[in-house]
């Protein structure tokens, strides 16, 4: 786990530090899982294909998280694992495996409304990649 939550009065700020852009996306998915279903295990009973493009890595990550949040809102889909077929700062091709929210094993959390562009950054560093996200709760 290479993400940590930073102090924010009302919402959630997450900083991710990872060796690769792929791991930034994996950690971002883990953050979404934690925020929608708590610290839980998730089976990979279902799979959703995800295909995204953007002008830059920060926008690509924003769209990826939006996709996960929308899947949860529409189908209560909790993400478990991420399969990445193709990834560069402007393109993501892959699939998210997971399962519908289950009251018996998952822990209901306060609603995440959206991922914002406030303070959003994804950048390559000497040690790998760093991303900062603010989510609106």
């Amino acid at each position, binding site marked *: 786990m290479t993400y940590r939550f930073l102090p924010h009065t009302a*919402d959630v700020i997450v900083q991710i530090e990872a060796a690769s852009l792929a791991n930034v996306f994996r950690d971002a998915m883990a953050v979404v899982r934690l925020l929608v279903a708590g610290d839980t295990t998730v089976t990979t009973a279902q799979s959703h294909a995800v295909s995204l493009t953007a002008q830059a890595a920060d926008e690509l990550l924003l769209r990826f998280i939006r996709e996960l949040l929308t899947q949860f809102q529409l189908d209560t889909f909790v993400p478990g694992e991420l399969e990445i077929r193709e990834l560069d700062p402007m393109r993501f091709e892959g699939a998210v495996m997971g399962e519908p929210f289950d009251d018996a094993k998952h822990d209901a959390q306060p*609603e995440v409304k959206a991922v914002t562009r406030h303070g959003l950054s994804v950048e390559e560093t000497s040690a790998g990649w760093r991303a900062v996200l603010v989510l609106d709760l």
Partner: protein
Amino acid sequence: MTVTSSLQVEQIDSYRWRVERTGRMRTHGLIFADTELMHDLEGDQCVQQVVNVAHLPGIVGPSIAMPDIHWGYGFPIGGVAAFDENDGVVSPGGVGYDINCGVRLLSTPLTIDELRPKLSLLADDLYGNIPSGVGSSRSDLKLSRLELDRVLEGGAEWAVDEGFGTARDLECIEAGGKLDADPGCVSERAKERGRNQVGTVGSGNHFVEVGYVDEIYRPDAAARLGLSIGSVTVFIHSGSRGLGYQVCDDYLDTMVRAAAKYHIELPDKQLCCAPLNSKEAMSYFGAMNAAANYAFANRQLMSHYARRSLTKVFSPQIAGETDLVYDVAHNIAKFETHLIDGRHQRVCVHRKGATRAFPPGHPELTARYRDIGQPVLIPGDMGRYSFVLTGTEGAYSETFGSTCHGAGRRMSRHHAKKVARPRNIRKELERQGILIRAASRRTVDEEIPEAYKDVATVVDVVDGAGIGQKVARLRPVAVVKG
């Protein structure tokens, strides 16, 4: 006083602070707070956000913050800014994801003594009648695409036409519960997210709260609002649910492109915006107003289900005599006419975590309330109290007819959960006579009373500054949360 290392904030009087105009700011900032509330802002980025808003093109008057200000994204929560109709902009970040998040208050003919023996039954029935929690939906009301478009066009009027309320209700809703909307500007994904959520409270700080009047400051106004000492009320706080979030997301993308197209420099990308006379702005207004109508309909339906619970637990007569006091938005952008530098000017007022507070005599007010001013509803936390105020001339002349919207958080959610973890918050509140019905313990923990500023302090500032006038205080006795 220095709030952050780079911002100079000067105290004007007991309730006002001025953030000096520097750099590329187009105006100064004006924060309403007392010394204690101002102290709470140190180390927080919300004052910087007041400054950021002051950079936007066409801003008229100061970038304003209410005493419940806290760190948001783009605009601060508790922010008010007006933009010239010719040179100004509209920013979805100045409205927020939960478009027309707002509150409404119902007055019942019950007294607290009549309620007590059946309080638990009423709390249970409200919890069963009004779905709450993340992604909550109504199994009994899934709208067809055609019907959803009617909701987006008609707002609360649609609900009343369908039998979910009365014509009297519509008189007591900001803008009559219906704004000029264009459902064609709302994406299919947003509509999909909205199809079965109308009539649901949602999660986070949203709630349905049963309370009673425990103090009255202005008996004449309170009587007009149907509030007397000991009378029972129902307070509803919710917005446009997933449909509104998706509209905001969709138009933030539009506005990022528009800001580049119109060469608008942004201190924060979340402030992305478009000129008010652009086609991007027109589309946003069509969609934002549609989402606002969805929120008006949502709260109207919840009132209907609250009345249904009162019928079941008490009687149809009690439900029939339960009146809507008022319904007001606190996340919205609207064109309004204000007196600026001695002349009437049409401006687009953004209120993000701020409430419209029009004064006595304003033509937009229902005749019922025209002589007392617009009712303003200020919820507090679930353990203390909420307030009913009225709008004032002071608000109209100084804050574009706006005032605060709530207590404002002072503790992060993470910190609140940590504080609550070893305690049983539900039991603690029950010992204080407040029943909690909630879909998630996490929500209750994050919403502990001490996570919020004391709303009485916030309200005392707006009352002292003359941008709102206290009418009554309400105490909670049962709270339904997500």
